[in-house]
């Protein structure tokens, strides 16, 4: 938590003023029982009505001052907590953006989302509450005890016993229940999992007529959840009654021993009442402290989750790189004995050597997990190669500023993802300054122009989140167009025609050939027919290049390639 406090930097005065005014408020509040004691001891005893009214006015003034102090404190607390949260959120998101693919994969999308939204909110609430309450409550406890000391040092001993006992009760109950609440959460996650499974697997469940068994499972899980909830409830329900009982026993003790003090003339009746009031105030303050501790525990858990992410440094950086010129006449992409491993000792790609000339089309085929996507992801430096060399236009990829490198490369990922906005706003991802003509040209090549033209709003048609208002095939074509708008030197199609029917797929390949004659094209595919006509095909098998060559050559000589072809088409078709 403390590491994050640097985000309070711009709000130092506010973060000091807030607790200070809280402190003032508490002081005013602490004065109230003493004033009341005076009303009784002086006003009532001396039968001085004027004094009583005067003191009543003092009470009202104390109230107003307290209110003013509190409002000031709350305002500055809110201001600094939000300043903290906003700065943290901004910096956190910027940090996420510096991370490279390896780290993003490791953290996972859902985690990153909850960190940005939930965890930062939690930390923000923690700061807010801390500024508001953390000084106030202990101050009231200590202040009450000090006030009691001025009234009667000997009776204060009762406070000295009762306050720690209450503190201990709160502590024990909390340490006992917090881990149990975590268990309840995981039970609830199970219930949620069962629900999700039953929604996603409804067809299978009904096909096997297993509804009753599913119901039994669910009933059992909810039964377990109930048991866990009741068990924790039993303990946490003790908190209020126990503290209530302790406080009242303490009050009984104050009255008894206080009675002795009154008898001996050490304190007055009014002071006795004041002592009782202070006892009640301590109780309230300690309960607030308990709630605050819960909030702070959550906040510090969130803070450590946030810090975990901050601690991750990007593995791919372009620090110190400046614009580089392409080497004249160099091949577009050159893999030299490349080894790549996501995890140590387990290379995903081994000894890949491949030279691709400008304007060539390269097919990348192989089974799942054979390293196809990995291979093309190395080109825009999403990951850094472990060994060997990778050059683009004759220059080592590590020498480029990342933005220069990535502007050369248009990538169409496996998952056809569009962003909320319009078709135009999605196309502008490729090139902020693209004209409508350029966009239409790209759509035309990507075989998307026809259906976009049919939309009543054309380029301004709304795209919902993820592009879910378009079919899988339409989305794929739009993502292809998005990459084409960049007019990239290298275009990578990572299994991005899987949702297209054969006819559209073929038309797309023809158009790419026609419109992108200068660009180097990588086509990753499971379909032999998609790569069949490439200038060069690289066949991957478990991270190794099982063969590099044209369709004809490979079909003759490469066993793996032959198998892939024959599993998808007849011999005669493959030989065509």
């Amino acid at each position, binding site marked *: 938590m403390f590491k994050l406090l640097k985000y309070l930097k711009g709000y130092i005065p506010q973060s000091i003023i807030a607790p200070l005014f809280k402190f003032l*408020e508490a002081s005013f*509040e602490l004065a109230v029982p003493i004033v*009341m004691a005076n009303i*009784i001891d002086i006003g009532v005893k001396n039968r001085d009505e004027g004094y*009583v009214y005067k003191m*009543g006015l003092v009470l*009202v003034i*104390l109230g107003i001052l*307290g209110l003013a102090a*509190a409002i000031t404190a*709350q*305002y500055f607390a*809110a201001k600094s907590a939000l300043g903290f949260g*906003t700065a943290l*959120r901004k910096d956190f998101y910027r940090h996420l953006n510096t991370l490279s*693919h390896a780290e993003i994969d490791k953290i996972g999308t859902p985690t990153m*989302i909850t960190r940005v*939204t939930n965890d930062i909110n939690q930390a923000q609430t923690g700061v807010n509450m801390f500024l508001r309450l953390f000084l106030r409550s202990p101050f009231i406890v200590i202040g009450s005890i000090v006030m009691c000391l001025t009234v009667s040092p000997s009776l204060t001993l009762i406070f000295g016993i009762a306050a720690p006992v209450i503190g201990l009760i709160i502590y024990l109950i909390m340490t006992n229940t917090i881990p149990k609440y975590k268990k309840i959460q995981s039970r*609830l996650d199970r219930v949620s999992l069962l*629900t*999700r499974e039953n929604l*996603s697997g409804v067809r*299978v469940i*009904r*096909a*096997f*007529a297993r509804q009753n068994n599913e119901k039994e499972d669910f*009933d059992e899980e*909810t039964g377990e959840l109930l048991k866990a909830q009741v068990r924790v409830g039993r303990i946490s329900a003790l908190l209020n009654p126990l503290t209530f*009982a302790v406080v*009242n*026993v303490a009050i009984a003790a104050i*009255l008894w021993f206080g009675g002795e003090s*009154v*008898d*001996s003339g050490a304190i007055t009746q009014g002071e006795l009442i004041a002592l009782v*009031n202070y006892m*009640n105030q301590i109780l309230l303050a300690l309960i607030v402290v308990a709630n605050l501790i819960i909030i702070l525990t959550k906040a510090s858990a969130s803070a450590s989750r946030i810090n975990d992410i901050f601690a991750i440094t990007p593995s791919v950086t372009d620090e110190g790189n400046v614009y580089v010129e392409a080497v004249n006449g160099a091949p577009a992409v050159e893999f030299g004995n490349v080894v790549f491993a996501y995890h140590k000792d387990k290379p995903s790609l081994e000894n890949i050597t491949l030279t691709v000339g400008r304007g060539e089309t390269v097919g990348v085929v192989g*089974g*799942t997990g054979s390293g196809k996507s990995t291979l093309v992801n190395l080109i825009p430096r*999403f990951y850094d190669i472990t060994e060997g060399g990778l050059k683009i236009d004759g220059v080592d990829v590590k020498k480029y500023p990342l933005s220069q490198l*990535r502007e050369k490369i248009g990538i169409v*990922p496996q998952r056809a*993802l569009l*962003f909320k906005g319009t078709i135009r706003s999605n196309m502008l*991802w490729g090139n902020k300054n693209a004209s409508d003509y350029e966009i239409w040209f790209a759509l035309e090549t990507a075989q998307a122009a026809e259906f976009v033209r049919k939309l009543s709003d054309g380029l301004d048609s709304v795209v919902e*989140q993820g592009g879910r208002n378009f079919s899988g*095939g339409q989305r794929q074509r739009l993502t292809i167009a*998005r990459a084409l708008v960049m007019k990239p030197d290298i275009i990578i199609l990572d299994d991005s025609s899987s*949702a*297209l*029917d*054969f*006819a559209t*797929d073929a038309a797309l390949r023809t158009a790419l050939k026609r419109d992108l004659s200068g660009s180097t094209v990588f086509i990753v595919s*499971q379909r032999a*027919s998609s790569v069949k006509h490439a200038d060069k095909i690289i066949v991957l098998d478990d991270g190794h290049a099982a063969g590099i060559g044209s369709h004809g050559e490979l079909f003759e000589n490469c066993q793996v390639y032959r198998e*892939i072809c024959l*599993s998808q088409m007849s011999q005669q*078709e493959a030989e065509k």
Partner: protein
Amino acid sequence: MADRKKSYSKDTLKRILIFTKPHLHYLVLAAFFSVINVALTLYIPILIGDAVDCAIEAGRVDFKAMLPILIKLVISAAAGAGASWLMNLCTNKITYLTVRDIRRTAFGKLLTVPLSYMDSHPHGDLISRMITDTDQISDGLLMGFTQLFTGIVTILGTLFFMLSINVWITLIVVLITPLSFFVASFVAKHSFDMFRKQSETRGKMTSLVEEMIGGQHLVKAFSHEGEAEAEFGAINEDLRQYSIKAIFFSSLTNPSTRFVNGLIYAGVGVFGAINVLSPSGAITVGQLSCFLTYANQYTKPFNEISGVITELQSAIASAKRVFDVIDAEAEETDARNARVLLPENVDGRVDIKDVSFSYSPERLLIENLSLAVKKGQRIAIVGPTGCGKTTLINLLMRFYDVNSGEIRVSGTPVREITRNSLRGSYGMVLQETWLKSGTVFENIAYGMPEATEEEVINAAKAAHAHSFIKRLPDGYNTKISDDETNISQGQKQLLCIARVMLCLPPMLILDEATSSIDTMTEIRIQKAFAKMMKGRTSFIVAHRLSTIKEADCILVMESGHIIEMGSHEELIEKGGFYANLYNSQFKVT
């Protein structure tokens, strides 16, 4: 409009109460303990006041009278604490039992609703109804009820005790209290608007973050970081503006009510003291101290109640969402005279006669489809993704019912067969593999939980899954889950095949995977498919030309319609859509 809203709130409330009915005894007990607790809690200040009156000044302390008062005080405190604990236990029980029952009922409904319901409701939404909304009911409504009840009892009790001591001072308390309401409603009005804006902005931020981080690879690929940060920054700034106001305004509640409390305290103090002074000696100093305590306590339940009411409103909204699920119409039950179709009576004939079907009235999907499938025939369904190939599966399995026409299995109309036995006579392997979280063994035995180990292993062997299962860390006892990646997509598919292999029904529905399967597994899957299909009537959603060509009949679908039908040779000869599709694959570019 407002009336209607009120009446549905009332109806929703009533329905929640119906769910609490089986646990009514806890409710009665809770009320009982609550009354005891409140009575004792309120009795204690009186005792304290009495004790204070025993200690007037030096030399005038009546210890003899004080002792029994203090004993009563300790006993009351202990008993009050006990009652409060028991009350909490009872309310916990009702709350959690009711929520459990509501969840179970809703889940039970999910098992009986027609598939169209699941297909048309986002799953995330249904899950959040089952989990978050039901929790909201427990937090808001049931906990709220007890607070409401305790609050009202406390207010009435305090009034009663105060009146029994002194009417005039009570009047002061009652008169100043409404101030706290004004303050609270002023605060609520101002903070509500800001809270709404805050949560709207927060929603905007969440969806931006979800979108950008979900597509982080793309953000990097297109060097879009700067734009994304700018957009994020703008929303972040808005959020700050609204949040400061929302948090500030809402944080005024406590100091303001403390202020009102302070006023009441001062009022009671002054007028109490004057009353003590009055010649008639209307009250004693001890009673004054008792009043001061009441004055502190009196406003608390009011604040709690106003909090409870907001919670109640959101709980009712949540309850409404859960009841929407519970009220969903269940699948039409099997006809009364429906037959159970035994596997040995299935001869493999499927007759589709003049079937028309649509998901929505505007778009007719299948029109007058007729097809007579003989025993052992293979029907391939072909067409681009999204053309509605799964619709046919939905109709065969009776996940959806036809709008007109009829489907017969072994000569019997499907409407006259129980759904379970109809579905049981098909073995289904979908491209979207679904496995339950559990062990490999449990998953294979899903359709036949009583299967022996040997049977399961045989099924796995037949599905060519045995060898990879053996290599898993715990073999057949390896735990798997739907979204974990400890096994590959292809292996999942093999497990799904093994699952069907174990029961091996007389007819099959298969869905070939388009992609994402490695060559070796692919070959295994094809072998397993071939083994299953031998002698069985099969419907295959096909992507592979080899499968398509070997089919007895090919149904070619495009945008929901069956546009061509016939064998490979017939269709090629026809030179239509299929021929075009077939040729395009080999078109030289």
